[in-house]
């Protein structure tokens, strides 16, 4: 395997890609996370879910957070959304510390969180209505629904939509608040593989057409490599920043890039970080020998 992929080739960036990253880092920082800790009491002791996590997300950046299970990536995004408090450290949005949830950070959850009693349009209008905008929000809501391609369903109730459609509405609903950053917590995790890749293309399209910064949590290597500008890889127990990978795959992205050397190298690197030895361990697990027809093995 090592003969096929140079483990460090993911660091090689073409001039165009390098220029893109230089331009990206010139942009203002939208979200800044500084020395974030999160500990939970557990029995008599404490469990450290996040340990000294610091990173920055630039304007219009698409960042994925990936890590082995138990690395605290969901805790991280819930802290960013204000749904949980950190134990120490701070989160700055446009330089100002945040506390509690707010419409400036839109969130798309893994579970379907559309309000079942509201139609698609009313769901999208929920945020503006909370802010006191009444019917004036309606034409704008239509545009958001249009953007996610569900104009035909604006008067449908969520239970009449498929999983992928529900998540598209959830994205439109979060965007309708015009948030500074869109937080997405494994939004496509519950979808089947086909719908998922469709949704990834949708999301990239939306992202390209809007001035929106996205922080996206996933456990899917392909998804991370396909969507991101940079990938934040977390370590488990405790959740620490392992590496910030700059994805060397040029934009705009298409599924055909899945087989380019840059893509494979990136994936290989994430895989190495997430499953350091585990990938090869299965070979050495003693496995009972069995036959189908009940014949004797010997």
């Amino acid at each position, binding site marked *: 395997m090592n003969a096929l992929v140079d483990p460090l080739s993911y660091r090689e960036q073409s001039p165009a890609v390098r220029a893109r990253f230089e331009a990206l880092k010139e942009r203002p920082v939208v979200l800044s996370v500084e020395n974030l800790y999160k500990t939970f009491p557990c029995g008599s002791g404490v469990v450290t879910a996040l340990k000294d996590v610091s990173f920055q997300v630039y304007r219009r950046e698409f960042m994925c957070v990936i890590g082995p299970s138990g690395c605290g990536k969901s805790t991280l995004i819930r802290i960013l*959304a*204000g*749904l949980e408090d950190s134990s120490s450290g701070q989160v700055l949005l446009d330089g100002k510390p945040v506390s*509690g*949830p*707010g*419409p400036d*950070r*839109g*969130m798309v*959850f893994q*579970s379907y*969180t559309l*309000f*079942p*009693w*509201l*139609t698609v349009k009313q769901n999208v209008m*929920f*945020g503006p*209505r*909370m*802010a006191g905008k009444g019917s004036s929000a309606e034409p704008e809501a239509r545009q958001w629904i249009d953007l996610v391609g569900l104009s*035909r369903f604006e*008067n*449908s*109730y*969520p*239970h*009449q*939509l*498929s999983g992928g*459609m529900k998540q598209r509405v*959830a994205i439109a*609903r*979060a965007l309708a*608040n015009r948030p500074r950053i869109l*937080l997405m917590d494994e939004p496509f995790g519950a979808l089947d593989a086909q719908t998922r890749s469709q949704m990834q293309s949708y999301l990239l399209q939306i992202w390209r057409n809007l001035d929106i910064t996205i922080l996206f949590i996933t456990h899917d290597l392909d998804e991370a490599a396909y969507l991101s500008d940079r990938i934040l890889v977390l370590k488990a127990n405790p959740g620490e920043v392992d590496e910030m990978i700059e994805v060397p795959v040029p934009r705009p992205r298409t599924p055909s890039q899945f087989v380019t050397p840059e893509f494979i190298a990136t994936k290989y690197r994430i895989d190495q970080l997430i499953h350091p030895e585990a990938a090869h361990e299965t070979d050495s697990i003693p496995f009972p020998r069995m036959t189908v027809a009940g014949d004797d093995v010997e």
Partner: protein
Amino acid sequence: MSPDSIREKRLREPWFAARRDLSPRRASLLTLLSFTLPLLIWSAVSYLPFLWHPDMELQISADRENVTTVYVAGDRMSREFFPEFQEAVRQQNQPLKATLESFDPAAEVPNGAALRRANKKTLRHLAPILTSNHWITEEQAKDDAAIYAAWGEIASGRKIPERPRLSDENLAIVARNWAAMSKVSPAYDSGRFISVPLLALVPQGRPANPDYLPAPHEVVVSGIKEFTAPPEAERPSMWQRVGHSIRIVFGGFLLAALVGVAIGVLCGTYPVFSKLVEPFTDFFRYMPAPTFSTLLVAIFLANDAPKIALVFVGTIFQLVLVVANTTRRLELPLLEAAQTLGANQAQLLTRVVIPGVLPNLYDDLRILLGWAWTWLVIAELVGVKSGLTEFIETQGRWRNFDSVYPVIILIGLIGFFTDQILSALSRVLFPWTARASCKPNLLTRALVFLPRFFQKDSSARALSDTSAECKIEKA
């Protein structure tokens, strides 16, 4: 595959398959059976004499010497005792036969007045047979002249009782008695009446069920009679009673719902209320509501107030806990999503929690309305008895069970149909629930299409479109 083989395959569909849906035809057949089967069993037990029938209903009774227990026609006795009863009467008749045949109409009998009185009673024992053969009316049952004439007609064979028949034994007794009676006077004359003891008619009866299980037709007949009877002074009509009972149930229930839903939703939303209210409520609900009845009368005095209060007390504690639990079952991610969309605490309650739990809350209230009905009977016994319960109580004490059943069944029907209507209404009220878009039953269809018929409004149409939209779900 040929059409024949397709049909054959459908025939082999099993009736018993775990968690597998039955075909619509089978399903409706079974629904129909679930109502007709109990009716059929009831009818079978009532109308097939070889099923059960542990009692005898007397058609002709008799008095026994030195026995104080008196049976009259229409009374029931166990089938084991009936032959003993008959035998006792036969024994009693035995010594009388000779004196009756050899008596002299002219001779004076000592103690004649008492014997004549006893003979009149014997005469009247035939009356029930005469009324059920429609020879005399119910009012004539004590008209001795008419009865006397009937004895003569039966003895001479001019009239033969058909429904019910008179046993041969009794026909012979009628003949013997008439032979003697007619010697004294051919027509009834209270002054010239036989004073030699007459033979008593041997008791006759038909197999019957105990009076607590009247036959369906008896229940229907007395139901119609009770419900069409006009109100008398001091005695409300049946429909007034129904109205009164409904007022008590709904009065108590609506009050409980008003207070209980508010408290329950607050408990389910804010742990502060939950911890403050629920432990005590949980304790209080174990105290049976009826134990408070005397207290409630003391507080609310007579009339309907203590009754409504009893339904209220019996319902509200359950209601608070059930509503609180339902509210807590609202998915937390919905609240979190609303918060990330900018909803504040007040908006969370009014814009997310309340609309979110409404359909489930509605179902809870439907179930608890059933509870409220169970308190009705006890509530109506509190203070001054009233409504349907008072009727059941009185009729029950008189053992008029054929009048009791219609009322019990009516309460069941009111409850059942209220629930069905509310259930159908929930599809109209909550078109966003998945349940609303699946096959509506007949009642729902009526409820949905009626408003559509009158107004071509988009909200009504949205509901009926749901089935079409179900199909394009995976577009």
